[in-house]
């Protein structure tokens, strides 16, 4: 007996819709076993991760705040992945965006600038993120170097640059030697959507990004090009689509969105630049993109779900004394199941016995 895959004659639409839900169900089942193995009450632990955060207003706000950068980055990554361009370094592009925008805030600190400052900071963050993403894209297009490895190496470089700036030239002189810049002036911080909460205007930009990507993919020639280059590279060449230029375009867009997410985090919820500004948003966004089936609206939903695991993880740390890394385990398992379930859309799994194989053989 062996396990074999049979290509389906047509894509199963029902499975395409059901597969993310199936992946989540399988993840919950696996986590039940993991929690039991750790000596926790599985039902109680799952409730802390996936239900408690949904029951109070503060946690719901936090889910929205955490989902915002995830969705924004994942929307850009989805464009890349659809075009078969592998940007894995969104985390670095996020950091560079945060650095570029914060540079302006640090320079203008205490000068009482006009209302132009914040929009320029956001623009600088997006441009810097795009420029940083173009490095691996150009290396791929010009020299054929692996965009995967180069974008990843640049994550470490960006992290070290951030560390240098907040410990060195940009450190707040009045900050008791903590590695942080001064708190941003009010002209350099994002306004809140609801007074007294943490829900900030960045959420609106995220929703705009989702809408723009939906239109781009579904209604424009560029979106068509992305889909054709990704699914049928040969057909794309015959149609005269330039795959190299598409790599540059999609990397630039995804880098810009990651950079924008970075400066929004700093100018919004955090309020100053410090060594750790992201709990791995750039990497988690990869899971968000796949769970959302590389579709902007799907990504909106999956971003909220992944944000739930972050908030649940924080609560589990307090209530169950489970380490923060449990969130990473849940996210990794979820990505495996998402990919596995996606495979079922293309293939049918069959158990095949050797005897049957012999019947179809050449004899």
């Amino acid at each position: 007996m062996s396990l074999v895959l049979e290509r389906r004659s047509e894509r199963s639409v029902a499975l395409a819709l059901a597969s993310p839900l199936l992946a989540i169900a399988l993840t919950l089942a696996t986590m039940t076993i993991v929690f039991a193995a750790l000596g926790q009450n599985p039902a109680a632990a799952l409730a802390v991760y996936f239900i408690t955060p949904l029951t109070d207003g503060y946690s719901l706000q936090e889910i929205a705040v955490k989902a915002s950068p995830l969705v924004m980055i994942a929307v850009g990554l989805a464009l890349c992945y659809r075009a078969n361009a592998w940007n894995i370094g969104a985390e670095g592009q996020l950091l560079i965006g945060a650095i570029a925008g914060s540079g302006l805030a640090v320079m203008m600190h205490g000068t009482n600038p006009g209302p132009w400052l914040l929009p320029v900071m956001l623009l600088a963050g997006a441009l810097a993120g795009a420029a940083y993403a173009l490095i691996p894209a150009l290396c791929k297009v010009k020299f054929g170097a692996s965009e995967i490895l180069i974008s990843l190496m640049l994550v470490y470089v960006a992290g070290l640059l951030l560390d240098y700036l907040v410990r060195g030239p940009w450190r707040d002189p009045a900050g008791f030697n903590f590695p942080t810049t001064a708190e941003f002036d009010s002209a350099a911080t994002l306004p809140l959507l609801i007074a007294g909460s943490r829900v900030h205007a960045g959420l609106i930009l995220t929703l705009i990004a989702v809408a723009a990507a939906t239109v781009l993919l579904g209604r424009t020639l560029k979106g068509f090009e992305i889909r054709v280059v990704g699914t049928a590279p040969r057909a794309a060449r015959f149609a005269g689509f330039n795959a190299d230029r598409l790599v540059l375009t999609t990397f630039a867009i995804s880098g810009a969105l990651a950079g924008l997410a970075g400066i929004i985090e700093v100018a919004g919820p955090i309020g100053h630049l410090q060594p750790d500004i992201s709990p791995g948003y750039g990497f988690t966004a990869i899971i968000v993109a796949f769970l959302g089936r590389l579709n902007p609206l799907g990504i909106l939903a999956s971003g909220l779900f992944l944000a739930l695991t972050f908030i649940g993880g924080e609560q589990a740390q307090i209530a169950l004394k489970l380490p923060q890394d449990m969130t990473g385990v849940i996210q990794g398992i979820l990505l495996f199941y998402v990919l596995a379930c996606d495979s079922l859309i293309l293939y049918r799994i069959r158990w095949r016995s050797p005897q049957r194989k012999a019947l179809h053989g050449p004899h």
Partner: protein
Amino acid sequence: MGLIEAILLSIVTASTPLLLAASGELIAERAGVLNLGVEGMMLIGAVCGFAGAWATGSTAIGALCGIAAGVALSAMFALATIGLAINQVAAGLALTILGTGLAGLIGAPFVGENIIAAPHLWLPWLTDVPLIGKLLFGQDALVYLAIGLIAAIAYVLARTRTGLILRAVGDDPASAHALGYNVAAIRTLAVLFGGGCAGLAGAYLTLAYTPFYAPGMTAGRGWIALALVVFASWRPGRLVAGAILFGAVSILQLHAQAIGLGVPSQLMSALPYLATVLVLVLISRVRRGGSVAPAALGTAFVPER
């Protein structure tokens, strides 16, 4: 011991985990499977290696625990990419995310604990030869194991039937399948071998490199090992040269910091990553036009019936 000798010794120590991880990945990639999960497998190998040695007091058992952990994690990857034909890039990333999380979970109680580092083998007389004595005859056992491993890989790939079949599966799985070879089984074994090597490479970090475990202690070495395979053009001999080169960059970076060149320490720490980018670009540029990568690298193989 002179400074030069000390630097050379530490370069060998820094090169060994890179060589081990890259050797395993070389075999997996030669069979046509790109496993981007090396960083995750190394990290889990580091934790399990430490845990094994901590519980038993034995470096050898620690090393075996590291190997077993790497194999177990790579089995998940094999099931996903070979059994279910999942995209290898995405599955490799999932493996790294999962491995990092699991390592943090398993390693939490071990942070701050210490073990005795793997002993160095001192051969009488030979180790006393100036300069090269300790370099050639005074390393820990895992260094010699890594060298033996890469020599064996070079021999098997170039001279044996097994090597021929492995390369055929990586270059043209459809033909290998038509000839009656079990592509899925061969690829699975190659991936498991790669996982074992990555696990051992991680274990080397906690067993010989530093006698303690710290979260995220691989610090991108798994990714650098992946770049090394590209740098080596999938050839074992060049892999050794590349590992020593990268080991040297990471050690000289430390020494440059110690003597205080007036350069920010973060810039020096960024050197290995910047060197990797530079090397990838230069290598790809030289090779532009004729790729030497296994032809079927990164593509799933599902036999049509």
